[in-house]
């Protein structure tokens, strides 16, 4: 995990690009494929410059079939490559679901280790860019239900790079969801204020070289005593923003990896605070927040002073013009926090 110096200010896209660049430079097996990832460098520019540097056979555009992209990646992995496919938006991952769930996730198990699928599926996810129902979804819960897949969500450039390197080097399939709302700057949910760029954020000082952030380790991004906020991705910034605004002394845990989960960090915190809120943008019912709430009450029942609350998107599609009413922003969190603290 030793972090290489020097560091450089990077936004999330640059950090992801840097991770890909470094991995490709170290390991000729790493192959990037996806819609528009080649010459154009991806619709969000995460793969910019890679085709030029590593050639067309290692970084290439694909036909528009997510099923094919992942199916081909599984075959490449069976050969011995380490494919890093991009799904252009998480909303378009469903056509690939069978190849992910029935194939990549189970290959090691069903072949008793003869074949494996060390694939890292990168995909921008989450709302906040007026993307409407089909450019805003957060389908992470689906993947956490499937045995054999790891699910990772970074919340800042530093973590994005270190986690992506760890994901690519992992020998199991990893779904790497990139919260697109914070590609260019952290976002605390105040949609009516100007965007803060990453530039001055401490987590945007990113080592230029190689480093890993191990999968399965959460980060306590704010220590506190009043309540534990479990979050990931964009919601980390909403949580931190609310902590600052309300002055309530919450402990904010950035999960970073959803499966395998860092249960120790969660338990330690909830035992200390006795109160817990879980946050995510996805629809509430059967979201990953349900798993977190279930785990916390199972394991910390006798420490809990109040029910674990869920602050999430509503059980509706992500509506285009009402996206800020859907988004679980500071108001929703503050209200829940007051309830949980007051209980």
């Amino acid at each position, binding site marked *: 995990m030793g972090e290489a110096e020097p560091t450089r200010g990077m936004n999330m896209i640059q950090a992801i690009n840097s991770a890909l660049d470094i991995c490709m430079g170290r390991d000729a097996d790493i192959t990037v494929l996806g819609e528009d990832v080649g010459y154009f460098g991806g619709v969000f520019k995460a793969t910019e410059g890679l085709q030029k540097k590593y050639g067309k*056979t290692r970084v290439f555009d694909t036909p528009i079939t997510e099923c094919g992209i992942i199916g081909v990646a599984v075959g490449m992995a069976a050969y011995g490559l380490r494919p890093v496919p991009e799904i252009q938006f998480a909303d378009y991952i469903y056509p690939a679901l069978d190849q992910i769930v029935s194939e990549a996730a189970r290959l090691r198990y069903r072949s008793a280790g003869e074949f494996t699928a060390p694939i890292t599926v990168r995909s921008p996810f989450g709302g906040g860019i*007026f993307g409407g129902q089909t450019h805003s979804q957060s389908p992470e819960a689906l993947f956490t239900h499937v045995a054999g897949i790891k699910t990772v969500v970074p919340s800042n450039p530093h973590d994005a790079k270190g986690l992506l390197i760890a994901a690519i080097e992992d020998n199991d399939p990893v779904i790497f969801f990139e919260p697109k709302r914070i590609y260019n700057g952290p976002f605390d949910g105040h949609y009516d204020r100007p965007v803060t760029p990453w530039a001055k954020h401490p987590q945007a000082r990113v080592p230029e070289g190689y480093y890993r952030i191990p999968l399965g380790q959460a980060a306590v991004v704010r220590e506190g005593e009043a309540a534990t906020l479990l979050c990931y991705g964009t919601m980390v910034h909403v949580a931190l923003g609310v902590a600052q605004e309300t002055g309530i002394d919450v402990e904010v845990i950035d999960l970073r990896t959803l499966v395998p989960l860092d249960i120790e960090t969660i338990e330690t915190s909830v035992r200390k605070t006795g109160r817990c809120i879980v946050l995510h943008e996805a629809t509430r019912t059967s979201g990953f927040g349900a798993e977190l709430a279930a785990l916390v009450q199972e394991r910390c029942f006798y420490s809990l002073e109040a029910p674990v609350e869920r602050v999430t998107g509503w059980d509706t599609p992500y509506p285009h013009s009402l996206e800020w009413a859907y988004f679980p922003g500071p108001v929703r969190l503050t209200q829940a926090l007051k309830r949980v603290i007051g209980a």
Partner: protein
Amino acid sequence: MSDQPRRNLPPLTLHVPEPRFRPGDAVDYADFDRGTAGAVARPPIDALPGGMRDHAYALIRVLDDEGAAQGPWNPRLSADRLRRMLRDMALTRAFDERMYRAQRQGKTSFYMKCTGEEATAIAAAHALDRGDMCFPSYRQQGLLIARGWPIGDMMCQIYSNAGDRLKGRQMPIMYSARDAGFFSISGNLATQYPQAVGFAMASASRGDSRIAACWCGEGSTAEGDFHSACTFASVYRAPVILNVINNQWAISSFSGIAGAENTTFAARGIGYGIASLRVDGNDILACYAVLDWAAERARGNHGPTLIEYFTYRAEGHSTSDDPTKYRSAEERGAWPLGDPIARLKRHLIVLGEWDDERHAAMDKDVAEHVRDEGRKAEAQGTLHDGLSQPFTTMFEDVFEEQPWHLKEQSEAMQAERKAAGI
């Protein structure tokens, strides 16, 4: 297993297609074979697909370089009809221009033009019956416009304003207009393909006479939905027209990434035993003619038709991209099949049914119409004017009846807004 000793084999290589022209390249289409207007035969509408496979590799054209209509596919439309088609194309283009600017002005989050491809949708609106159901992609605004749907209504959808029948729920241009036989547009590519086949099968199974048609881009043909649609259409001989708009680009990927180096998109249909035609997509007479052929074929229970429209996406993919980043800026001007509006205009002039003055007057007229409708629509709000839909609409239409959890969430939202003082 082979018992030969392991042979000393040459290395394999991976072929990754590359477009001919990238930014900065000079564009030369000299070797482009357009075929000859009027040269492709017109099979009877009940022709067996096996007997007309060559049509998938030909290019059906009616309008020649002089603006005359040639050959057996000439649909012999009245001058009146031709003028209406011309106006529909002009109106579509003017609409696109205005909404593109509206996006640049921050009045909406997103827009997508169909510039250069207008003929494909307008021809369909004229060739199909109004009761026929269209399952469009996001680039068939021309269908709605030519079916006479109010552009003001479309603008309100784009602005997600108080007049938006879709209650601000959908991204701009994702229209739905049941009364115009226009199915709700999805953001997920090609999903409409099997849906159109299902509609057609349903119509056939009920002894109805309505047929269905669907559209997707050449890039989208790679999705599994396209394949299942073709399979179902072939197996049940569904009365459906499967339209592929080959505008040669899928965002930044050229058509070679979808397979165009080795085949045509019309040829995909051959594999299923579906009658397949390939047509000059910038020649509205040819487009009309093939659609009319396919519609009559479907109505006569002779089965589905797959049509590739060979055209060129003259503008960027959407307001979110800059095409000069991945293709030569010269391509648009050099494209050998011209512009569909200019070609129909010329034809009408050659026929003696049109002139530059009337064209200018028409342009002015459509521009004014768009401007007037635009003003009226904007009076009902634009995206960032503040939210035009009551928050509670968000919890409606998830189900026919609102279950308890959505009721609770709706109430929680109300409380949240109250707390926030909104």
